[in-house]
């Protein structure tokens, strides 16, 4: 077993040549390709990391915006609720005011109708009462009611107490003092003289007495001086009757029905 010198040298040269050839054709190229790929992968990893970072930042931004939008939405909803509530209260108040107005108007209408009713009742009752009294007096005393009325008025005038009489006299102190006697019916001339005499007797002067007829007065006599008035009429009694009727109507629930909203 020997080492062949020529082969030994040739093999050394062969090996060195092979090292050079492989270095050029193999290692350099493969290493270059691997390094390029490694650099490429590194670059892509960096880009990926950068994109991931960017995506993370954008996600954070979007999250913040979403939260801001949610807050804004909540704020807008709260504002809207507040406005709706205020509007509801306003409309409710307006509706209540309107209802109150309507109710007030209705009540006013009812009250007015009630007043008209009582006025009408008053007039009718007065008329009927007068008719009834007139017929009664005519049938029983053989005197008409108007005569009796005037007699009663004269009697009352004569029976005035000191204070009332003094007040009437005081009211007649003026230069144009006159006494006006109003009745709902026409007074016969004889009765007028009698009344004039009674007035002048009580008030102690030569007063001018005027007579006026006023159907609205109802059954009765009214004496008026400047600032004072003395009356006897059926209105007083009818007024009492009216109040009693009004109370009776209230008792049967007229007022309750008026207060109910429709």
């Amino acid at each position: 077993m020997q080492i062949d010198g020529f082969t030994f040298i040739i093999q050394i040269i062969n090996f060195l040549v092979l090292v050079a050839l492989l270095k050029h054709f193999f290692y350099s190229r493969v290493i270059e390709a691997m390094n390029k790929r490694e650099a490429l992968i590194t670059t892509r990893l960096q880009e990926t990391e950068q994109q991931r970072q960017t995506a993370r930042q954008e996600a954070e931004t979007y999250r913040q915006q979403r939260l801001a939008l949610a807050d804004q939405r909540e704020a807008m909803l709260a504002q809207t609720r507040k406005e709706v509530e205020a509007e509801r209260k306003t409309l409710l108040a307006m509706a209540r005011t309107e209802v109150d107005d309507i109710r007030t108007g209705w009540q006013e209408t009812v009250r007015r109708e009630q007043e008209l009713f009582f006025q009408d009742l008053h007039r009718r009752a007065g008329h009927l009462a007068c008719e009834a009294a007139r017929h009664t007096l005519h049938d029983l005393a053989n005197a008409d009611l108007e005569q009796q009325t005037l007699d009663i008025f004269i009697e009352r005038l004569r029976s005035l107490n000191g204070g009332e009489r003094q007040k009437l006299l005081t009211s007649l102190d003026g230069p144009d003092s006159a006494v006006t006697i109003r009745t709902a019916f026409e007074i016969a001339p004889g009765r007028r003289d009698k009344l004039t005499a009674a007035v002048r007797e009580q008030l102690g002067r030569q007063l001018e007495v005027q007579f006026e007829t006023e159907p609205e007065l109802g059954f009765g006599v009214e004496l008026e001086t400047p600032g004072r008035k003395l009356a006897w009429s059926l209105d007083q009694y009818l007024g009492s009757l009216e109040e009693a009727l009004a109370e009776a109507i209230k008792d049967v629930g007229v007022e309750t029905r008026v207060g109910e909203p429709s």
Partner: protein
Amino acid sequence: MELSPDSIIIWQWQSIVLNATILYTWLMMAGLVLGAGWVTRRLSVEPPLSRAQNLLEVVVSTIRDQIQDIIGDKVDHYLPFIGTLFLFISMSNLLGLVPGFHPPTGSLSTTAALATCVFFAVPIYGIAQQGVTGYFKHYLEPSPFMLPFHVMGELSRTLALAVRLFGNVMSGSTVVAILLSIVPLFVPVVMQLLELLIGQIQAYIFAVLTTVYIASALQAHEEKERSQNLRSSKGDSHLNTL
């Protein structure tokens, strides 16, 4: 029976002899260079990679990792020498399974030539790293009296490299040849498989030992390299037993 392909003369002119060792070395070189050149001609940086490119990159990256583990620095500086040693021996032993092919590593001339290349490469790399003074100084450490032992160590390990590789390859071929004459069926196949394994292991051992020798020549400067050299020495003693 021929124990060495050196004795197979293909062509001769005066003192120039073209024997089987040289011829098959050239053929193998041609195959390696042409194959590598063909594959690397169309290397692609981006996937998909061809199978051949994948194979070459796996081989290169594995060798680089081994060198990285042992030397640790300037891997691409040592890759062509150590990688070519491994590829040459590996391909030679692999092609030895081809009938009619005489592996060049079965020639003591070839293994001696490779060991001689290692013998000179180690101081060259050492001097390139540390300078002439820095490299040869360690021959005088820890004492100048150690110089003869250092020189003997260098020579003996070179001789061990050559003989180990030659012995393994030659013995494998011889065992298969003997078994073919005794038990022609099945057993030589099994032995050839074993020879294939041994051939690759020897290629690995030769390349790793070369790396370890170069690493030991580079020792000196950094603590890191010292620790690696300690590890390399352990690997050396372990591999020398194989």
